[in-house]
């Protein structure tokens, strides 16, 4: 078995980073950033997701096949969101009845 075991220090640092990011995302929501508030909120959430996936879920020590499956899954999620939104954001552009 070539299993990689991380140190307790690594896990504690990741937890602290996650807690700090939670505080930041909560506080920044009360600041008026206009359109960018949702961008900032999602950017912080993606950072937290990466920390959990790479360290807690050991993706950084996983096989190439597992990494490929994870990336493939995220790709399909992006396709789902992008194609649906490309529909809903562009419906108003042309005067089609029953928009």
């Amino acid at each position, binding site marked *: *078995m*070539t*299993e990689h*075991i*991380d140190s*307790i220090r690594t*896990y*504690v640092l*990741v*937890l602290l980073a*996650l*807690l700090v990011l*939670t*505080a930041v*995302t*909560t506080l920044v*929501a*009360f*600041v*008026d*950033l206009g359109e960018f*508030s*949702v961008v900032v*909120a*999602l950017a*912080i*959430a993606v950072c*937290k*997701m990466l920390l*959990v*996936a790479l*360290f*807690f*879920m050991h993706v950084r020590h*996983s*096989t190439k*096949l*597992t990494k490929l*499956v*994870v990336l*493939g*899954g*995220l790709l*399909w*999620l992006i396709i*789902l*969101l992008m194609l*649906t*939104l490309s529909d*809903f*954001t562009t419906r108003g552009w042309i005067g089609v009845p029953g928009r």
Partner: protein
Amino acid sequence: MLTTTARWSGRRSKLASEAQTHVETIALREQFDTEAQQKDASTLGMWIFLITEVMFFGGMFTAYTVYRRAYSDAFAVASSSLNVTIGAINTAVLLVSSFTMVMAVRAAQLGQRRTLILFLVLTLIFGGMFLGVKAYEWNEKFEQHHVPGPSFHMDGVPQQGHAQLFFSLYFAMTGLHAAHMVIGVGLLSWLIWMAHKGRFTAEYNTPVDIAGLYWHFVDIIWIFLFPLLYLIDRHLPK
């Protein structure tokens, strides 16, 4: 004659030792070549399941995105009625439970049975705390008439239907997340029982590892739910 017998017995002992290398254990089933290969197969299988879960929740996140775009004013008011302090504290509780879970996986990898049980129990407690707080929040919604249905009412929203849509999504998404937490609590209870019986060793701890992946996945879903449900346009004057 003697030499032939010696050769035959030698061959037989060689065959016996070959047979021994294929003795089936829980860490190395017949169909796998090595323990590492079996572990990789289990991990990959779990990830493929988690990807189907991503798409399962993905449909709800897409519905949320479409309606938030369409009815952003009502969503902002409805979102701001949620208790942000409780939400943030609950997020922290869930993140700490993910930390205790990864510490349990680490203890299992090192074959430390007592530490493994300790961290599994801690994870169970934090998971239970999260569900308790969630139940309190839901109860509050019933008292405030913020549950979609005939008795729904929310001040400051001209179109009640738009706010109902927010709360429909709120209950569907947090409800589905809580259902996953309940399953996770069941998995943890089973793991604690198995660890208590001494089933997990440094050589074989795949169930702990796999359940850990599930627990962290449920954590990631909440990492997105928290800002999307609780933190829409908090800066606006209400």
